[in-house]
């Protein structure tokens, strides 16, 4: 199945985001070999040049390293991966706050809602 992409943002950038997620959550474990460009392109349903561009971006960020002809490997730098996880996590929290604030939630209510959610009491009122 093809990956989902939205308009307005270049596809390669959206691929970078998806790859970030996969590298952090261990879908592509540290030190492991990445699938070939073509394989990833087929899986994502995108142009191989686009996929190549995304992979090059990750290389530039130091998350991937290419070893001449043996392919691309995920970094083993645990610190780097942790930093990325931190960064992505922060992004999502920011998004959460932004969205809920836009709906009129105060920061206190937001925290309350988060607690309810984490306790599994989703049927309770958030307010």
């Amino acid at each position, binding site marked *: *199945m*093809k990956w989902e*992409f939205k*308009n*307005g*943002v*270049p*596809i*390669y950038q959206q691929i970078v985001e998806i790859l970030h997620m996969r590298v952090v959550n261990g879908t592509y474990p540290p030190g492991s070999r990445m699938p070939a460009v*073509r394989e990833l*392109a*087929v899986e*994502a*349903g*995108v*142009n*191989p*040049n*686009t996929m190549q561009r995304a992979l090059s971006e990750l290389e530039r960020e130091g998350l991937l390293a290419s070893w001449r002809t043996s392919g691309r490997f995920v970094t083993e730098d645990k610190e780097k991966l942790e930093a990325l996880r931190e960064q992505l996590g922060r992004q999502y929290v920011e998004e959460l706050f932004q969205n809920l604030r836009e709906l009129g939630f105060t920061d206190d209510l937001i925290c309350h809602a988060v607690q309810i959610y984490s306790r599994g009491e989703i049927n309770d009122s958030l307010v």
Partner: protein
Amino acid sequence: MSVLFECKDLVKSYGSTQALRGVNLQLQSGRIVGLLGPNGSGKTTLIKLANRLLQPTSGTLTIDGEAPGTGTKAVTAYLPDKDFLPDWMRTDGLLNFYQDFFPDFDRERAQTMLDSLDIPKNMILKKMSKGTREKVQLILTMSRRAKVYFLDEPIAGVDPAARDYILRTIIGNYQEDSLVIISTHLIADVESVLDEAVFLKQGQIVLHQSIDEIREETGKSVDEYFREVFKC
């Protein structure tokens, strides 16, 4: 990176109608290009000219620097939007045929793809369903190691699962030294597969840009932008 397809002031008229009015275009290897436009915009005419199924009224068209002829036909693969194979032939007969006439035909690859779809060797084309027949045509065409591929409406009138198969086959077949030209009016489905878009309107090129640039500059998908450009 070389220019594999080039048109200079290409004009094609049929009597009083001008199907192509002075087309200038250069397409490079390693790209998958979308030739996009509504029906009657001249897409098929351009493809036929490239395959020497039509002669230009004026102007030139070259494939890797050569005018269309037996030389270019050996390195060009064309998938038209109709049933073009003799329907009395069997699968293995067709493989033999392609292997006989096209030195760049990769028979093993074709056989692998046919096997993965469980298409038997001795099945006659006539007995196959429309969808299977279309896949056979696609497999034969994409198993050529050609310099330029012309795919005319490869996903029109095809169910979503088959569409995925077709697009995956096109992507999986990508080679750095060849050029793939996909002519279609169904842009949303192919957009993520393309490198560049060429908009053809009433026989003229109104746009030739990379997909990323279009998305960045307009903030829209190419499909949306296309609808704007071609609003009636």
